[in-house]
């Protein structure tokens, strides 16, 4: 390799390392905190001197955290399934069928995705108390539809537009029944898009904080992001720093795993759907 070539490589290496450091710096800090001994939590060291699992053991012993984790997983999964099923139906129609009102549907879902959640909090707070779904899973799944459904419709219709639907016809010409054509040709083509959309929707539901603190009052439906804001130390005077850090790391792991496994698809989904809730 020539000298200039080597220099270019090392320049890019520096740039890449800078970007990666930028992305992972705060993540590392919360991980470091979560592994610190309670006595060294306040030493401000960037790397823990004594590594310990104590904070993790602590949070998994309290129902405050485990219950919130179950709520988070349950609520995010149910919201994702509803949004993806309804979104798939609508997106299929948008990509495949001729009918007036299509662009209205897309425009509407986009506007709704931009809706300020605080504007929904005060009316929903009252409605949910009156009909008795305040502080329940249903009470959170309903407002999650406001961002998950538009996101699903948007991302899915972008994916479905790319599918070569003529293959279905070709399969039928070759003697496949409609069911076979769907199962062997269309479903495998559509599955990656549906799957990616599901991951994106799940991440958005997992991320929500405002609805989760506003529309819950006990651990019955409080999700992890809301629960950690209410964490208290093991004694009245202890700061819950270690517990918060450990809980934060636990709910970050699934996201990191998704990102590592499916990054290419997530990028495709984000830029074609391009809706940030």
């Amino acid at each position, binding site marked *: 390799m020539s000298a200039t070539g080597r220099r*270019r*490589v090392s320049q*890019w290496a520096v740039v*890449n390392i800078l*970007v*990666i450091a930028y*992305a*992972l710096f*705060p*993540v590392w*800090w*919360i991980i470091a*905190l979560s592994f610190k001994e309670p006595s060294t*939590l306040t030493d*401000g*060291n960037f790397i823990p001197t004594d590594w310990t699992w104590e904070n993790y053991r602590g949070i998994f012993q309290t129902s405050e955290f485990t219950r919130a984790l179950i709520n988070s997983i349950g609520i995010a999964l149910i919201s994702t399934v509803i949004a993806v099923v*309804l979104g798939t139906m609508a997106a299929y*129609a948008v990509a495949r*069928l*001729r*009918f*007036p*009102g*299509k*662009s209205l*549907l*897309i*425009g509407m879902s*986009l*506007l709704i995705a*931009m809706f*300020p959640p605080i*504007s*929904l*909090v*005060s*009316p929903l*707070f009252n409605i949910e108390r009156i009909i008795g779904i305040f502080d329940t899973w249903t009470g959170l799944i309903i407002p999650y*539809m*406001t961002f998950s*459904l538009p996101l699903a419709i948007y991302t899915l219709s972008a994916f479905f*537009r790319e599918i070569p639907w003529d293959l279905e016809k070709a399969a039928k010409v070759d003697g496949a029944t409609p069911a076979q054509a769907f199962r062997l040709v269309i479903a495998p083509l559509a599955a990656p898009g549906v799957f990616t959309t599901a991951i994106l929707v799940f*991440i958005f539901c997992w*991320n929500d*904080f405002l609805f989760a603190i506003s529309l819950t009052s006990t651990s019955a439906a409080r999700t*992890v992001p809301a629960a950690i804001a209410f964490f208290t130390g093991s004694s009245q005077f202890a700061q819950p720093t270690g517990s918060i*850090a450990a809980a*934060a790391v636990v*709910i970050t792991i699934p*996201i990191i795993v*998704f*990102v590592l496994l499916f*990054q290419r698809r997530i*990028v495709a989904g*984000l*830029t074609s759907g*391009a*809706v*940030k*809730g």
Partner: protein
Amino acid sequence: MTQSAPTAPQDAQAPKGNRPLSEGARQERRLGWMLCAPAVIVMLAVTAYPIVYAVYLSLQRYDLRFPQQAEFVGLSNYGAVLSSEFWWEALWVTVFITLVSVAVELVLGFALALVMHRAIFGRGTVRTAILVPYGIVTVVAAYSWQYAWTPDTGYLAALLPSGSAPLTEHWPAIGLIILAEVWKTTPFMALLLLAGLALVPEETLRAAQVDGAGAWQRFFLVTVPLMKPAILVALLFRTLDAFRIFDNIYILTSGAHGTGSVSILGYDNLFTALNLGIGSAISVLIFLCVALIAFAFIKLFGAAAPGAQEGGR
């Protein structure tokens, strides 16, 4: 939005005029509406109905401690909000945070997008790394920043002169809120811009180079104009999103020291002051602000109206 995507294959145009529809076309129409109906009904039920109800609540004097005494008071809640210095301070803070963070994100996002576009190796790794801030729960990132900047627990606070607690002073706290917001959302901006960069034809850039344009000239005179639609869409999304800022402020400062956004103000009026009437008035005002921003973008800057690009259908 697909303005930034390379292809948007147009579906066949709907039949023009009053030509009677064939039976097949009518059936297709009906099937299309039926498939969309559940999604439309759910979206309207979860947004349109509550916002109408919020308007109704905002016209009431409604203290949650005394729900029996609720009564119709016309626009006086709006009068109370608009004549309160808290509203204007929160609005100013929100606008300031929105403008600064979106501007910084645009510059940083471009830099990141160019790195991902041009890097001669390691593009995949960089892309994976920047997806982490995007995907991470905002509250988690906010806690990380909060601990980092708090004296005693923080490595960043340790770098400052001793005794300084940046999160307890107005301007430093606002700066740190912007930092947290920028860190979290720049990757999204960068990915949208990256999709836009892919649309700039390599030949055009090379032709400009042959004609003697320098790197900066090529960027500002060729790349940026060609990417205008992608840039405007990214700006629109991020501006509307930044205007709703809540999580970062709630965790970092809880809105103390004059750092509360309008969303924080609405939340406090509802859950601390327990005033549903005033809280709803703030909700409606925030909704109007967001609608105004979207309208301004579309009219003034010509950002393609949602759905318009699929247009003419």
